[in-house]
């Protein structure tokens, strides 16, 4: 469903992403891991059309993504790391606005809004101002805003940052539901246990390059010697080192 081929992006002398390739199928969750500055967000930005690659291409359903107005962007839903919501407006007004960007007619939009709110458990708070929401509620609404146009591919950039365990668990349930509906989920995070719980496959990037790509079981070959069955975090640290990446 999503194929990333040889993506490269440089900012002056700094090469943020170099030759990154991977694929993602329907009903699959792919964990994209990497230390700070490894190129995860730049990669997600190129897939969602926010950044133009210097080289390589993004294929959606086998066809390359071309330009700002390419209709294939409708198949992608972005859940940015920032809480990209208007605090001054109600949850309903936020979703109406973001849904309208995808040219949904009124009836379809209202149905999509209700379905999204129900999925993330915010139907009762639809008319409340987002500014009155807790961090966890905002995160769930942030997710709902990315689902309105019923995308096949969901790009989730650290969707659980700063939320309590209850909200995190609720988001996991939402994502598992979406996976069960056949959605392809690209999930970036620093929380290894989330990837262990959700992901079918993992891509680890560092210094802009893919350094490992496999299933959780397959990644065991990168485990430190003599560690037995290693945790994902141990494998991650073995691959990327323990040097601080401030």
């Amino acid at each position: 469903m999503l194929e990333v081929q040889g993506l490269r992006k440089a900012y002056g002398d700094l090469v943020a992403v170099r030759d990154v390739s991977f694929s993602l199928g329907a009903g699959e969750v792919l964990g994209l891991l990497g230390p700070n500055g490894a190129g995860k967000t730049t990669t997600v930005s190129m897939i969602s059309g926010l950044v133009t690659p210097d080289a390589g291409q993004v294929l959606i359903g086998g066809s390359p993504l071309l330009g700002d107005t390419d209709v294939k962007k409708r198949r992608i839903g972005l859940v940015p790391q920032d809480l990209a919501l208007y605090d001054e407006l109600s949850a309903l007004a936020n979703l109406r606005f973001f849904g309208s960007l995808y040219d949904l007619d009124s009836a379809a939009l209202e149905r999509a809004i209700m379905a999204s709110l129900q999925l993330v458990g915010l139907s009762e708070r639809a008319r409340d101002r987002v500014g009155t929401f807790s961090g966890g509620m905002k995160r769930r609404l942030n997710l709902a805003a990315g689902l309105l146009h019923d995308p096949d591919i969901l790009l989730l950039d650290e969707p659980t940052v700063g939320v309590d365990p209850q909200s995190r668990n609720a988001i996991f349930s939402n994502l598992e539901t979406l996976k069960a509906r056949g959605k392809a989920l690209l999930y970036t995070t620093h929380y290894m246990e989330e990837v262990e719980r959700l992901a079918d496959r993992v891509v680890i990037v560092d210094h802009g390059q893919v350094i490992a790509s496999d299933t959780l079981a397959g990644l065991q070959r990168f485990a430190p010697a003599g560690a037995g069955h290693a945790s994902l975090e141990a494998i991650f640290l073995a691959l990327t080192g323990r040097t601080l990446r401030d």
Partner: protein
Amino acid sequence: MSIRPILAMVRKDLQLFFHDRRAVIMTMVAPIAIASFFGSIFSGNNREPAKIAVAIVDQDSSPISRGILAGAQGDRNLRVTTPSADEARAAVKRGTVTVAVVIPPGFGDAAGRAFFSAAAKPDLTIWFDPSHAAELGLVRGILTEHVMQSVSAEMFTGVQGQKMVDETLQRLDRTNLSAQQQTLLRDLLQSARKFYNEPSATAGSNGGNGSPRGGITLPYAVKEDAITSGENVAYNGYAHSFAGMCIQFILFASIDLGVGILLERQRGLWKRLRSAPISRVTLLAGKAASGALVALLTLAVSFAFAMIVFGVRVNGSLAGFVAVAVATAVMASTFGLLIAAVGGTPGGTRGIASLSVLLMVMLGGAWVPSFIFPAWLQRLTVVIPARWAVDGFDAMTWRGLSLGAAVMPTAVMLGFALLFGVLAIARFRWEEA
């Protein structure tokens, strides 16, 4: 290009605008309040003008100096006091008196002699407040009139004049004049002496203008006719002040538009917008449309207030007024896009943009009419869009001009809008890493 995303952006921006009470007050109420104040100052209603505070120190106490004092005290433009020299100087220093005039001892005698001959002219000392340079010119002109009137009146009909004629007759033989000139001047002065000896000549001293006692007066009367939109239509200064203040606050609102885009980017909202399948032009068009609507709303509310409360009228073309208003609104909103395109941090951008808007409205004649600027500055202001907006609104309101007079301001502002829009698209940071 679908219209639905643009409408959604406009609706969302209007919701955000009306949610922000500070923005509503700044955009709707502030221009009305400040325009009302400026309008009351600059309105051409037939109210008594503020009098200039003048101190006259009469150290001469001659008929001429008393005549000057009386003339100045009767002038409708002056509020005259008669303190001592020290008090007058101190009052100018404090700013309670704008101009102080010192008539020195012997002024009357010396002025009389200088009036008929090449004798040395006496000094009239003037102390003035340098912050009121414009009033100094006015006082100097008024004083000239009263000095000439008083000196000539005294010379032609007063005791001092008689004395001067007698003295001149006695000294006539000692002058350098030719014999023929001496004869002619003697005849003139003897005729003047006979005139003084007539009982009716000195009766009713300080007579009205036109009598000999009145001295030299201005040989004309001014008939003033303000050229406005029509016969018997008074100039309404509120029309100009509301145009100027509306433009100022519309441009301030455009800063909010530009900074708002930067804040949306900072908060990650722009990522959502850019990830949707809509073009860059659509995104900026949506922003420009909401900015232009807020600007039009500001103009509509402000001018409606001016019409209802201050009697401002669109005495020219209504279509021209609407055209100027729409062009102003579009120009302002695209200026907001340009601010977002060239701006860095929201805070820093607001500071620089505020300064540029203040310069723009100041040079555009929004605060005070641009005709008071130096000629070179007036020529320079044609590159200021606010100047065209002010001129366009003036033309369609109190000047009462036809649609043709709105064409140039409208076209120039739309040209500025196009320039701002193209620059914004070219300079906008579209990449969202």
